[in-house]
């Protein structure tokens, strides 16, 4: 895999809130690596993710470049950026079944959708859960389905917004291993924002402190 061609590059990214500088980041994340951004609440961690993913509120202004390989993602609408999101809530669509949520993630013209969904569920130990209502799943199961939904959408980079903060300690360790393992295996550059030192250690990459 060609590292430079698929890296996530943040070049002189500066975000201002009402004219006041909020943050400044300059970094490159190689495929399979995780860049951790740490900082207290209010330091603009989540704002950085919203900027990269294409959801920056109009009260913020931003400068700089964000590239995925050679692509300037800032010129693309959010849905064409190929930037996947994982939040602390799994946010499985309540009007769709577990299988429906995974299919929602699959690109429109993927072959053998059912087989892909079944395989994804099997990978996270939930084989045969296609028809279940997401509300009947445990917190850990929902988190795993959300991760698979993200991976099935074949993103080019992944943004993680405190994805483990709502899990209990035992589950948190398990999910860290699963998430970082899957991201490395898929060779995706990832950006993690957190205020938990252990997350940063488990991610095992470069760390930037904000605020």
């Amino acid at each position, binding site marked *: 895999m060609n590292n430079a061609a698929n890296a996530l590059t943040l070049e002189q990214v500066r975000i201002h809130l009402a004219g006041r500088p909020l943050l400044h980041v300059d970094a490159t994340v190689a495929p399979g690596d995780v860049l951790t951004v740490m900082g207290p609440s209010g330091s603009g961690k989540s704002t950085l993710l*919203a900027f990269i*993913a*294409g*959801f920056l*509120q*109009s009260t913020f202004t931003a400068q700089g470049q964000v590239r995925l390989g050679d692509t300037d993602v800032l010129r693309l*609408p*959010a*849905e*064409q*950026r*190929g*930037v*996947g*999101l994982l*939040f602390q*809530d799994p*946010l499985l*669509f*309540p*009007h*769709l079944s577990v299988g429906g949520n995974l299919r*929602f*993630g699959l*690109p429109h013209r993927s072959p053998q959708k059912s087989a892909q969904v079944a395989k994804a569920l099997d990978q996270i130990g939930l084989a045969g859960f296609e028809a279940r*209502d*997401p*509300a009947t799943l445990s917190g850990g199961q929902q988190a795993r389905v959300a991760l698979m*939904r*993200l991976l099935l*959408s074949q*993103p080019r980079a992944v943004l993680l917004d405190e994805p483990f903060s709502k899990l209990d300690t035992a589950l948190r360790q398990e999910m860290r291993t699963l998430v970082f393992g899957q991201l490395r295996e898929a060779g995706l550059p990832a950006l993690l924002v957190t205020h938990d030192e252990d997350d940063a250690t488990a991610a095992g990459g470069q760390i930037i402190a904000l605020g």
Partner: protein
Amino acid sequence: MLRLAPLLIIALLVIPVTAGLGMVLLPAFGYLPVLGSEQANLSAWQMLFAQPGLGRSVAVSFASGLASTALALLIVVLFLAASQGTWLDRSLRRLVSPLLAIPHAAVAFGFAFLIAPSGLMARFISPWLSGWESPPDALIVNDPWGLALTFGLVLKEAPFLLLMSLAALPQLQAEQRLRLARSLGYAPTLAWLKVVLPSLYPLIRLPVYAVIAYATSVVDMALILGPRLPPTLSVSILGWFNDPDITRRFMASAAAVLQLGVTLAALLSWWLLEQLSRRLSHRWLTNGDRQRGEALFTVTGRAGLTLASLAALAALVGLGLFSVAGFWRFPELLPQSFTFDHWQRSADMLAGPLVNTALIALLSTGLAAVLVVATLENEQRQQLHPTRSLWLLYLPLLVPQIAFLYGLVVAAERLGIRPQLALVVAGHLLFVLPYVYLSLAEAYRRLDPRWLYIAQSLGVSRRRAFWRVRLPLMIAPLLTAVAVGLAVSIGQYLPTQLLGAGRVSTVTTEAVALASGGNRRLIGVWALVQAGLPLVGFMAAVALPRWLGAPRRAPLNVQRQG
């Protein structure tokens, strides 16, 4: 396309109201070229002030409007203060939407059946308590002071204000404030009145003003419950507008302007009362008193709304009883015999008005729902802040109907549009739109934006995310808003009557027309049908999402916290 929606809504609400007001103001000062009068003059006003009983009409309109609003607000506020989290609170909250859905006319008829000398209440206490063997000879319904009208209005206004308060409360973190005040030693009801109410009132001020405007100028309830000689100002105006003597229209226009003044005066008085109570309560809020009055507030708070709800329910039961009553001697609580004659005789006559009612309600609500969703979606996409234009939505609710609807008919006629079904639909839209907007906006804005971020980050465009994520997640509040819209349309009397020129008959116009006849069995049938229609809408709104397989229980994180 989407960007035009908010402009379209504002145009749809503002243009008819201003055009209508204009076409009432001009003739009030003698200008109505159609009738060959082009010279400004004051003769309409001289004629108006020469009408016998005008002062009394004005006084009853003003007083019943203000008193009913004050009473309804007091009942709602004390109830919320006294019943937080109790069993009573939960059950009445469930009742509030259905109660609100019952049209004004049906409530008025039911209430009349309840309090009339031969009504259910008199029968309940006769003869064992009252000693009455025949109905007492007293003018209770249509009393000259407008008391029956005032209490009838309270029955409709209290659920409305309660619903508006319940919608505003989540913004205030009432639970936390209450816990804080109680940890400082405040008794629960006093705590609510001192720490929640001062922040709640500003949020429900516009609805309160809308209630005052409505109550000071109501026509259908005043026709049923209000005084007769002279009637309220609004009812007098309707009579003059419909007078075959065309010169009376000038006077009616002048009276419509006077009605506008009466409503404005009531709003101004209320505003002065607000200032006064703010001054007076300032000391009370900070005097550190944690206990005094607690018991009194708690008891009246729980009793007030319970009584109002019971009265509304009893009114419905009364309608039902009268509609199937055969022979029914006075002090007997129940009819001696039951019959379906009245229903069978009404069935043929019901069909036409029922079709009209449904057609008008579905068309106006459908249009309103599309416009409102488009506006809210546009607001979300443009990240606009909503508050500025909100008062424009209230415009048709703040200007008395009688003051601009007749002008609207005149304005439409000048454009060559004759009164007809389409005009009635457009007229209903004026009142349906604000309510659909008000009931949907909060839920729409509170949907966690991360649902849409997730969808878009999975490669779905904003347009598709709207259909595949936003709409399915909003199906329950959307259907509730539609049910509210249907209920508002079904209950409209004046817009149907005026914009349809009496030729478009709905269940509501037919029911109100029965008021003068006094055949209670027939009234029972029509009022019950009128009351039942909106309930069908609400039941569908509850049942449909389940049937469509939408999430049975809303997951906790569908809505943004706080």
